[in-house]
């Protein structure tokens, strides 16, 4: 669904220029054609089609949520996704972490001179498909071209606006002793998919990124009346960083158990080979949710029904403690600190 076979269904609209030129960002005719034929054609919607400098739209009642994120992943295409789909999913997911329904995205492209048009078009098609699948509209954007050697092919920034149709106060400070800690699926796939490509690691089966939107299942949790205390997507720094940030903000102890945390065998093997801890590795379609223990079973049921959530798992709980702390009980039954990664040498993965 999210892939774009540009030979069959998405012919590159500007065929006379096989590569992006400086002039495509220069404000003249070439730039105009790029905007019209690429972005206008792919993302077209009534708000974008007004071709204003700024998008104008009405919003439904309720608080708004807004977020921004830049995407610099290398390689641009990786097993399970690409920089375009990620730029939509990542920002949609950031909105979802407030329990917001994502509505609108902006997108800004920074393109390195010489990027094949075909590459740009594949990314644009992928963004279009991802936005459609997420039910969001790309309503404004920007394009800049930088000199060859001054970029790394393609960088994308997206900003998202969503509406909060609930009265919950979802934030780390609300987390309290007794809360259950639930993750939305197996961990570490995105980071290891990228690392496997970059390091030339081969496994029996290809590790695919978990890049995916997660807002639908969160909206379902809210609709079901689950009293969500906190949501956090498990991107850079993985589960370990997310839990440490929340423990710090809430001033609590979070204790999880290693053998309850779902990690696929191929991901674990890749981590072993590169000396990484799967709990430190980035995900792009996974989140952790804190709910009162009384809601935990129902939360898990709803999450497991979701498209991506089959492996959702209740991995631990929150308790009172004299200092913020995250512990993990090892497979041998001994507890240790689960720390944030400190300056690990990871390539760019998001």
């Amino acid at each position: 669904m999210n892939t774009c076979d540009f030979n069959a269904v998405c012919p590159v609209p500007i065929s006379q220029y096989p590569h992006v030129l400086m002039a495509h960002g220069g404000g003249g005719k070439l730039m105009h054609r790029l905007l019209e034929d690429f972005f206008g054609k792919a993302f077209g919607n009534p708000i974008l089609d007004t071709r204003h400098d700024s998008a104008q739209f009405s919003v439904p009642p309720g608080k708004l949520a807004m977020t921004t994120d830049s995407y610099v992943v290398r390689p641009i295409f990786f097993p399970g996704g690409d920089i375009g789909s990620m730029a939509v999913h990542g920002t949609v997911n950031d909105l979802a972490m407030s329990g917001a329904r994502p509505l609108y995205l902006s997108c800004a492209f920074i393109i390195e001179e010489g990027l094949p048009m075909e590459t740009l078009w594949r990314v644009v098609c992928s963004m279009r498909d991802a936005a459609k699948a997420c039910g969001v509209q790309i309503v404004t954007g920007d394009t800049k071209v930088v000199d060859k050697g001054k970029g790394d092919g393609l960088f994308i920034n997206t900003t998202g606006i969503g509406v909060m149709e609930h009265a919950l106060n979802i934030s780390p400070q609300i987390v309290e002793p007794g809360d259950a800690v639930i993750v939305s699926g197996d961990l570490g796939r995105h980071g290891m998919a990228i690392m496997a490509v970059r390091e030339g690691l081969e496994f029996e089966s290809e590790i695919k990124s978990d890049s995916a939107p997660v807002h639908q299942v969160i909206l379902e949790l809210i609709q079901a009346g689950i009293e969500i205390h906190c949501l956090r997507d498990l991107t850079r720094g993985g589960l370990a960083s997310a839990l440490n940030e929340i423990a710090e903000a809430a001033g609590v102890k979070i204790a999880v158990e290693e053998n309850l945390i779902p990690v696929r065998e191929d991901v674990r093997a890749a981590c072993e080979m590169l000396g990484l801890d799967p709990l430190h590795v980035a995900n792009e379609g996974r989140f952790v949710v804190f709910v009162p223990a009384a809601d935990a079973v129902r939360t898990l049921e709803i999450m497991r029904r979701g498209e991506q959530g089959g492996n959702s798992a209740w991995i631990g709980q929150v308790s009172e403690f004299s200092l913020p702390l995250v512990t993990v009980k090892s497979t041998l039954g001994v507890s240790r600190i689960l720390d944030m990664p400190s300056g690990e040498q990871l390539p760019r993965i998001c």
Partner: protein
Amino acid sequence: MKFLDEYRDAEFAQKFAREIHRVTTRPWNIMEVCGGQTHAIVKFGIDELLPKQIGLIHGPGCPVCVTPLEVIDKALEIAARPDVILTSFGDMLRVPGSTTDLLSVKAGGGDVRIVYSPLDAVKIAEQNPAKEVVFFGVGFETTAPATAMAVYQAAQKGLKNFSMLISHVLVPPAIEALMSSPDCKVHAFLAAGHVCTVMGYEEYFPLVRKYRVPIVVTGFEPLDILHGILLTVQQLESGRAEVENQYVRSVRREGNQPAQDLIKKVFEVVPRKWRGIGEIPQSGLGLAAEYAAFDADKKFGLTEHRVDEPTDCIAGLILQGHKKPHECPAFGTICTPEHPLGATMVSSEGACAAYYRYRRHDAPELAEAK
């Protein structure tokens, strides 16, 4: 691909632990030489499964930790040159020299790259003929064959723009140095399985005979380490001192002969300074005369400046087993992985970094947390 769960089985771990409790009658200090083992012990909490009489001493087996400041300073000097691409393993980049670190040199415009294999550095040299490509090679016998292969390949290809800054070290001379120290508290060693995969374990027989100290070649998974400790305690309790091989799935007595041949061809044994310990005779590998053209030290005409370690740091005492990381007043206060004062805090395999990462709230609070 087969995985490691079978070496992390809680039930088997408890069986080994019970057996160790059963056979232990007296206090024994066992040193695990390798930082990978230290890391596993602290991460999985293996020491907490052992009887109180068994003390684990964390040895000097982290190559990043024992690389002297002077050598790191040389790498920094090379990396700052505009005509150079400096390559190394990821961990080396964070290690502070006396003034800065490689990541900061990179941020300042130096071309510093992480490689997973020294052979990648050779490839980089081929792809960048206008640049001098330098590989900063550290490690024990485990990584020495790959470093040797890189030099060998570069020579075969006739590469003139490739060289190495080498700080390779050897395990048996370090064990000898520790044992010959008059205040040595170590009763037995767990030898590093991966070093022995390359080198075999014949080198340990003279040490066992000379110092009457059991040496058990041990793997890195929790069950390996518990099994290694059990074999060691059984020897100690029965008054034996032998070389034993726990890691039979990887290690043969004679080791990997082609790898050893390559090491012998490319390197020669030299005296080497170990950070935190000092110079140990015949404890390092340097390039043999035939490959001197690949010696970055000579190529760039580097001079060595003596650098003193911060006085607050007790890494030397920790590496020799006289102190535990949390017994250092600087531990977790002025010395952290982000601002390491000394060797053992800089790498994830260093004893202080392992304690910081998994144990820093040890003592009353974490006991309460458990």
